[in-house]
């Protein structure tokens, strides 16, 4: 198994190289440059020209790419044009924020979705099932950013229950109050993300449970004289959760990607917000670094899913 995982990681190398070239080229293809309008709206075009030149932005793309790769291997992703600090430091400061939010959202999502999916599947066609399905359709129909904006307006401004910006309150001091403040800041985006991110899991789990209920092995269990509640516990739930468990690998990277919306609306200083800002400022070094990280995370997520699946499903063995 370890061999296979190592091999899969090695296979990822050419994928990452191709990805990085694509990302690099796309970033370059964007109109505009990092300097116009950002330093000073009335900056001298001559000076911008000069800045472009000393930063090597007039070189052929492959030369620029090559410089970038060489620096990459020195652990140097360049400096942000916008923030004037090393990209590595810029991103690492924000990665933790994003990770906290993503993890919290994911835990909440599963905590909401699993009971709902199982309950709906078990009581297929009855009132609770109808309500849960209605709920998932509604959350599916409303665009996520609308929910975020509505949520922040109602709970943040009207009621004032939650902070509407940032990742930590400036008055927090001491580790307890720091953690408390951080948690307080991710509470509303986490809950909203979870409440409205359940639809896929609920629907999938529901249909898995319904399939399992009428499966032959459940009929076998019934003919063994196993009581209904034990059949659900020992046969139906475990078998229905299997594809969901395997999905977890993808969903964590999905959440990292999805953080772009949440972080923008909540002005939450994570990778997503950084990404959006860098695009508007043509901050090439940051864009390429972030896309590369997202790309690698996606590849790792796929691998993670395969590994989880091979652990929980005896029929699949990575060999």
């Amino acid at each position, binding site marked *: 198994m370890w061999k296979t995982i*190592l091999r899969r990681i090695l296979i990822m190398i050419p994928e990452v190289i191709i990805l990085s070239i694509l990302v690099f080229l796309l970033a370059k293809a964007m109109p505009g440059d990092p300097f116009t309008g950002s330093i000073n709206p009335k900056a001298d075009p001559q000076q911008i020209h000069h800045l472009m030149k000393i930063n090597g932005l007039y070189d052929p793309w492959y030369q620029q790419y090559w410089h970038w790769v060489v620096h990459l291997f020195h652990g140097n992703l360049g400096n942000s044009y916008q923030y004037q600090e090393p990209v590595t430091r810029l991103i690492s400061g924000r990665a933790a924020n994003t990770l906290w939010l993503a993890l919290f959202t994911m835990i909440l999502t599963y905590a909401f979705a699993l009971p709902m999916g199982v309950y709906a599947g078990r009581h297929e066609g009855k009132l609770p099932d109808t309500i849960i399905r209605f709920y998932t359709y509604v959350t599916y129909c409303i665009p996520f950013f609308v929910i975020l904006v509505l949520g922040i307006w109602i709970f943040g401004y009207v009621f004032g229950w939650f902070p509407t910006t940032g990742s930590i309150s400036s008055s927090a001091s001491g580790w307890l109050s720091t953690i408390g403040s951080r948690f307080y800041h991710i509470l509303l985006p986490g809950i909203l993300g979870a409440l409205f991110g359940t639809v896929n899991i609920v629907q999938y789990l529901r249909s898995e449970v319904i399939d399992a209920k009428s499966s032959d092995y459940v009929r076998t269990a019934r003919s063994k004289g196993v009581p209904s509640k034990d059949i659900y516990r020992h046969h139906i739930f475990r078998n229905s959760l299997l594809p969901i468990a395997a999905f977890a690998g993808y969903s964590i990277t999905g959440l990292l990607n999805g953080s772009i919306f949440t972080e923008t609306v909540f002005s939450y200083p994570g990778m997503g917000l950084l990404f959006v800002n860098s695009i508007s400022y043509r901050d090439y070094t940051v864009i390429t670094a972030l896309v590369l990280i997202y790309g690698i995370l996606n590849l790792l997520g796929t691998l993670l899913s395969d590994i989880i699946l091979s652990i929980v499903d005896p029929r699949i063995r990575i*060999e």
Partner: protein
Amino acid sequence: MSLVEIKDLKVHYPIRTGFWNRITDSVRAVDGITFNIEAGETYGLVGESGSGKSTTGKSVVGLEKVTSGSILYKGVDITKKANRSRLDYNRDVQMIFQDSLSSLNPRKRIEDIIAEPLRNFEHLSKDEEKLRVLQLLDIVGLDADALYKYPHQFSGGQRQRIGVARAVATNPKLIIADEPVSALDLSVQAQVLNFMKKIQREFGISYLFISHDLGVVRHMCNNIAIMNRGRLVEIGTRDDIYNHPLHIYTKRLLAAIPETNVNQRMAHRASRLAVEKIYQEQQSKYYDENGEAFPLIQVSPTHSVALPETIAKQLASQEGEVQA
């Protein structure tokens, strides 16, 4: 010259292992088989699941990549794709599948299903095409209103006949029938088998009839090959195989067919258990040291068996004594 000559056909699937995923071994699904199908005959290919009989069938239609060996159709090797298209092979050779529901496109109407091979190979006008489809439906005994229905609206037997209608649409010379009746009830099975025989009489079609059911094979086939773990263990006429089987594997298969003669059931069971005992105890006599079948040895103009020459001759003469 036979219609189809299969010569030393091999289909191996690679097994990849290790860090670099290199081919370390192979599954020898079909491992060097040779037989001929004559024009207008039904050739039976019999074996248990995993014997390689379906793989053989798919190779003959060109659905399987052949590792080595040749399949000559009218003297031309059709394992090469260029030869298949030059000969119109895909028009002359059609296939009937076991599962008629999953082999018919559920979203297409019967008219389109049956007309599909016509559209591929013949350029008919709309009216000609419709007339031909109606003729085909008539041949398989379905009403004209079937044209606008979908596969799920038919019973298993009707669907299987639709599969047959599609297979005969282009006037093929050879039909590969892979377990065509094993999913069907007895009365429907009778219908499909009768019908296959009827169109054979009318159009001179040859069948490669692949089945595990020796009762059905006896009813349908003139010549039969018994397949075991990718190799042929015995080939012969119906009489050779059913009345003078030589290889223990053939005997074992025959002994396992349930008989409807209740009065003989104890005797039949005893003989089955006796054959099973020989099969278990005398593996080394009937298989080589690797547990594989020996090369085929001819014991009569029609009958060959996969045994060392001395044993084959000895068994054949014993059979001959029994005959005399």
